């Protein structure tokens, strides 16, 4: 029941402008999936509003968070870029951090390539909707019809919610002034944490992430803002190097 209502809400958000096959397969989703997508949309809307408010109250003009959200549509990269600028670093460091962060979308694109369907326009539109969330919902569906439905439903609903929330946040940020009083600066790391925890299953990934985080924090007082996060990539050495040496000498000093 709640699935039907949520699907209708999605339609109210503009999903009915889609080609008919897409609205048709919306019914292919389990009600629990629709509910989960709605929860993720709500959470991302809160984060999007935080992003808009933090950007504007930090001194950026409203077009920066708004245009970024439409054109880049990747929360982590947007926060990395704006965060570097607000902290007094150059935009270049933020853009590089955002691009390295978004390189993960490359394998994601391969993972969902089959659900986008034929047609150049639809593939381009679909590609822009590739996010951690839409891919996560897509790959856990049981069959091709449900995969397609989950991808488009999650991708489009998120795109609409995220951008509306960023606009609302940008407008409110101008009024609130002090977003720190609302604790909005804690919202972004918290949701990133929620996104990344399921990916920490492998021990060597955890070791690399921990090493990288230590490097980044230690580098923070010395490097321009935006660069410490990039320095964390040094942690990747942990996943590449010891794979061979571990077999022979477990306690190598590198």
């Amino acid at each position: 029941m709640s699935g039907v209502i949520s699907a209708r809400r999605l339609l109210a958000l503009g999903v009915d402008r889609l080609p008919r096959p897409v609205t048709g397969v919306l019914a292919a989703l389990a009600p629990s999936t629709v509910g989960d997508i709605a929860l993720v949309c709500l959470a991302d809307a809160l984060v999007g509003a935080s992003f808009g408010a933090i950007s504007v109250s930090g001194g950026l003009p409203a077009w920066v968070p708004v245009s970024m959200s439409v054109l880049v549509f990747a929360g982590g990269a947007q926060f990395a870029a704006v965060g570097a600028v607000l902290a007094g670093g150059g935009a270049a460091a933020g853009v590089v951090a955002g691009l390295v962060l978004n390189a993960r979308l490359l394998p994601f694109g391969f993972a969902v390539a089959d659900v986008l369907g034929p047609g150049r326009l639809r593939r381009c539109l679909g590609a822009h909707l590739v996010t951690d969330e839409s891919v996560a919902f897509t790959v856990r569906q049981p069959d091709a019809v449900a995969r397609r439905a989950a991808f488009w439903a999650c991708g489009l609903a998120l795109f609409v919610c995220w951008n509306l929330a960023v606009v609302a946040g940008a407008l409110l940020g101008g009024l609130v002034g002090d977003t720190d009083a609302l604790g909005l600066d804690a919202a972004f790391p918290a949701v990133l944490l929620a996104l990344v925890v399921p990916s920490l299953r492998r021990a060597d990934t955890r070791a690399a992430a921990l090493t990288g985080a230590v490097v980044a924090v230690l580098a923070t007082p010395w490097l321009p803002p935006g660069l410490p996060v990039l320095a964390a990539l040094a942690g990747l050495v942990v996943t590449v190097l010891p794979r061979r040496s571990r077999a022979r000498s477990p306690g190598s000093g590198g």
Partner: protein
Amino acid sequence: MTPLAVLVLAAGTFCFRIVGPGLRGRLRLPVRLDRLLSDAAVVLLVALVVVSTLTDGHHAAGWARPAGVLVGGALVLRRAPFPVVVVAAAGTTALLRLAGVP
């Protein structure tokens, strides 16, 4: 933040996204590259979490924000829904600041 910076980030991001769908299954990504890219993203995300939690520019961020993120993290491990995590983290930080914690 210039329009150029936004456009470069947007164009680069779209390039990463379109490669897979553009090839339509004609090519597979090598397993090692796939793993390296996803590991790189995890490393960057964790670093982003830690840096944006603990630091503010070149300085330490105080206690209210790390406390909020810690509460959010505990809820993540208890598999709380995303909105609960976000509201609890921001709420904890806001309340601590209201109480005078920096």
